[in-house]
């Protein structure tokens, strides 16, 4: 097992550096979310708190809808579960890359920040997951997310539409930086990415399934496509641990 030993400060710094593009994208998306928070009747502080604790975009959006309609706490629990179920898979994938000798407290603390983006950059690094790298990224990205939500709640539509539009692709750019290099090196992953793009596009257009929320479509596609890939192209443990992008 290859494991590059790095000091805590250098891991934190590297994580914080890669947290910058995440924070940038978060800020723009959170701004739009803040407008929803206001519509749901949250104060700026409440929207800040919700974002600081939850760090979820579609999940919070769905949750604010429940608050707006005052549908009850059970409804909130159910909707939150459905909108965020994909994190179960990400968390399970991360559990397999944890250092067995690491402290348990890291598992609890890291879980707080399993967002699409932080998950992506943390798991893209080779070897065991580095908790301090994740904390560094979260330290930058999470406050941007919370501040963006609060500002959106206060200021509404002051950000020019051009700027929101441009910033909103930052997160997708990062996803590409993570999946494309391994797709180039490994033919199976390359074909998989192409299949994912096609299937995801089809599901957004087909009747019935296109009515499902984006979160539900993501988890359905992930389970189906990753299962098919696992059945057709099994990976040995060594492969599963040591491959993975070097983008981050």
């Amino acid at each position, binding site marked *: 097992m290859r494991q590059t030993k790095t000091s805590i400060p250098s891991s934190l710094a590297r994580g914080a550096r*890669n947290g*910058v*593009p995440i924070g940038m*994208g978060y800020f723009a998306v959170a701004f739009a979310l803040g407008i929803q928070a206001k519509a749901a*009747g949250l104060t700026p502080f409440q929207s800040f*708190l*919700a974002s600081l*604790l939850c760090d979820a975009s579609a*999940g919070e959006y769905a949750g604010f809808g429940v*608050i707006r309609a*005052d549908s009850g*706490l059970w409804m*909130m629990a159910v909707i*939150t579960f459905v909108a*965020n179920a994909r994190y179960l*898979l*990400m*968390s*399970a994938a*991360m*559990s*397999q890359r*944890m250092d067995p000798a690491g402290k348990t407290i890291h598992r*609890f603390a890291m*879980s*707080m920040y*399993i967002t*699409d983006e932080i998950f*992506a950059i943390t798991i893209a690094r080779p070897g065991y997951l580095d908790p301090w790298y994740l904390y560094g990224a979260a330290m930058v990205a999470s406050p941007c997310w919370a501040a963006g939500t609060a500002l959106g709640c206060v200021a509404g539509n002051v950000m020019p539409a*051009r700027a929101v*539009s*441009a910033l*909103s*692709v*930052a997160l*997708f750019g*990062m996803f*590409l*930086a*993570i*999946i*494309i*290099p391994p797709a*180039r090196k490994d033919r199976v992953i390359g074909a*998989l990415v192409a299949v*994912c*793009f096609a299937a*995801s596009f089809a599901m*957004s257009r087909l009747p019935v399934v296109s009515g499902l929320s984006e979160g539900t479509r*993501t988890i359905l*596609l*992930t389970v189906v*496509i*990753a299962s098919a*890939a*696992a059945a057709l192209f*099994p990976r040995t443990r060594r492969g*599963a641990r040591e491959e993975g992008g070097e*983008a*981050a």
Partner: protein
Amino acid sequence: MRNYAYILVMFAVIYAIRALPMTLIRRPIKSPFLQSFLFYVPYVTLAVMTFPAIVNATQHPLAGVLALVVGVVAAWFGLGLMPVAVLCCAAVFLSELLLV
């Protein structure tokens, strides 16, 4: 007060979703199928979340398509997270000056 109760429930459910697999799955999974499944999960999730969402995120869909192409090319040639993200933003901003 009711809003705080909602926020608390939202937080409790989302944290449970994130923390349960991480804290309960303490050993390496033995099944080759599950191992392979979890190996593919990140690539599949990120890919399905990227497209077609990137095209719908911008004011003009063509700007989103351009961002996708620029992002794929930049990542293909090994640029890091930040440069790829910035190039995608720039592609949208500049093309929308003409498109919108």
